[in-house]
């Protein structure tokens, strides 16, 4: 996998076509088709809003409904990119056994599909921001940075898990369990103020998780400055840097592990 080849003409064409195919197949046979991409986050929001806005009041963050939806949308993006990226190599086994082409394109195409889905979901977030009267700040310009951060982390995991999944099909089940635990270890449905009230250390530890850090920073930038971020509870520059270092390490390890094993995918699937 030479860097210069990654975006060669042939590979670009293939990547594009695989992303389009992925997207076409997603709502195959459904009456509403692509509309589901927008309807799903909308319904999810409605449920969350009723449960956590009226029934269980978990906290009093400003614009809590949008705050909640934005967090869920970002988490779902991470879950989708890692989950589908992990399954991508095995599920495209037929292709790998019959044709020679760079394998990373398969992983890349599924994560890009997840990215497209995120974009659609963000449209709903934007609409609700208007409805809720969220005041847009200059800091909103930072949101893409955090999305790139989550994407880089997801890509690293996707490469690593896709490789592992070829060897051990248990990977999918294990990852599912890890993701369920991680969902609750990440301040998505509960505001971090709840944790902070009990233990400042626990809040800091939770924020070392790059996904938690990125979601909180993105909420801070886009929705409300009330959001608790690492910056707001610690002035230690090292603690701020750790999540980013984790992202870089995961991405590098994932890519190297994938690269080392990818040439044997065709015979091992």
């Amino acid at each position, binding site marked *: 996998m030479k860097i210069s080849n990654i975006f060669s003409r042939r590979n670009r*064409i*293939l990547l594009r076509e695989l992303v389009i*195919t992925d997207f076409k197949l997603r709502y195959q046979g459904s009456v509403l088709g692509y509309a589901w991409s927008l309807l799903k986050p909308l319904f999810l929001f409605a449920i969350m809003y009723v449960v956590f806005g009226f029934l269980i009041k978990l906290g009093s963050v400003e614009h809590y409904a949008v705050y909640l939806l934005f967090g869920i949308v970002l988490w779902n993006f991470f879950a989708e990119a890692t989950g589908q990226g992990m399954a991508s190599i095995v599920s495209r086994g037929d292709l*790998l056994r*019959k044709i020679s082409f760079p394998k990373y394109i398969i992983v890349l195409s599924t994560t890009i599909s997840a990215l497209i889905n995120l974009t659609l979901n963000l449209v709903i977030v934007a609409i609700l921001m208007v409805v809720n009267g969220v005041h847009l700040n200059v800091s909103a310009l930072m949101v893409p940075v955090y999305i790139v951060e989550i994407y880089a982390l997801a890509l690293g995991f996707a490469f690593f898990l896709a490789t592992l999944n070829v060897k051990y099909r*248990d990977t999918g089940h294990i990852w599912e369990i890890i993701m369920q635990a991680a969902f609750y270890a990440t301040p998505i449905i509960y505001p971090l103020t709840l944790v902070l009230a009990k233990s400042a250390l626990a809040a800091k530890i939770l924020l070392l998780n790059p996904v938690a850090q990125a979601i909180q920073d993105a909420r801070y930038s886009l929705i409300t400055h009330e959001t608790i971020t690492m910056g707001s509870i610690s002035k230690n520059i090292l603690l701020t840097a750790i999540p980013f270092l984790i992202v870089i390490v995961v991405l590098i390890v994932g890519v190297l592990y994938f690269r080392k094993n990818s040439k044997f995918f065709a015979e091992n699937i």
Partner: protein
Amino acid sequence: MSENSEVAISVKDLYKTFRLPHEQSSGLKQTIINAVNRKKGYEIQKALENISFEIKQGDFFAIVGRNGSGKSTLLKLLAGIYIPDKGSVTINGSLTPFIELGVGFNQELTGRENVFLNGALLGFSKRDMQGMYDDIVEFAELERFMDQKLKNYSSGMQVRLAFSIAIRAKTDILLLDEVLAVGDAAFQQKCYDYFEELKKQKKTVVFISHDMGAIRRFCNRAVYVDNGILTHEGTPSEIADIYLEENMERVREAADKQKDGPNLLSDKHKITGKVLKQAEKDLVFEVSYSAQDDDEMYVGISIMKEGVSVAEINTLPDKILTGKGKLTYTLDTGMFNNGIYQLDAALFKLQNKQLLEFTKRKSEFVIKGEDITRGAALKIKNTWKID
């Protein structure tokens, strides 16, 4: 091909083994159990051993062998789908990366969508494909079906579509694995026309097929692979003969085993045949038959080449047989081109033409000579007139 034409594919000391995992060893549990028991979760299977050959530019190169001999593995190594354990594959020129038709076809997408997807796998952009789209559809004769999902296509239609896209690939070297195995006669004819076109364009083709006729007709060089070892290299005719002989050997073994096995036809009738003598221009074939009833019968023999009957004769209308006896037939072998032929005799009931019994062990004869046809069985008269 001339001796000094350039090398297109060079294979040197190629080895390939596979790890065949035991049941369930792609699971974590089995891996742990195996590690505890110090057992390997797999068996090593040698797929290819010490393979070396060269393919020159413009060669139509056949890889021949029985099922499971390693032909397809070899082709996948050439395509870069597999990585060799040892040795090297050097490719000189652009190569089609696929070895089968319709790779990546998705049953849930329409024919049109699949054309673009398959095209992308061959390296064609959307714009390239738009330019070729009408030709592809027309050639595949699927104009009315392009907006239907592929799952509603017959297998023949899918192959036509795949073939129609694949032939647009503009590479110097093509790898073709069993393309002729699917599709009807009309499709085969299209394949043959395409092969002729490839030959004319001096493309390098590596071809796997069990169709010895096609190999004799199109290829100029061939190798025989047996159990992962390249045993013979030669002209397509030589290699095709080796293949047919090996296959005949297996058929004979099977027939010998079957002798004691259950018989679908009744045991009341027996027939055997053997070649008594073969001279330069003819041979004498002797048939022995016996029946336990007094039905009126007749004997037929058919002469086959590569499993296809090329001539048949029977004792009708005048020689009607009963009981048991022997008869001989003198066959004029001057009418046959070179190759290996089988003689099959059968006993029929006169009244309703029912097959009573046939020879389990086929007789064989070989016609030697220079190969000037593409594997045709019969010689016909030379009545050319040049204006």
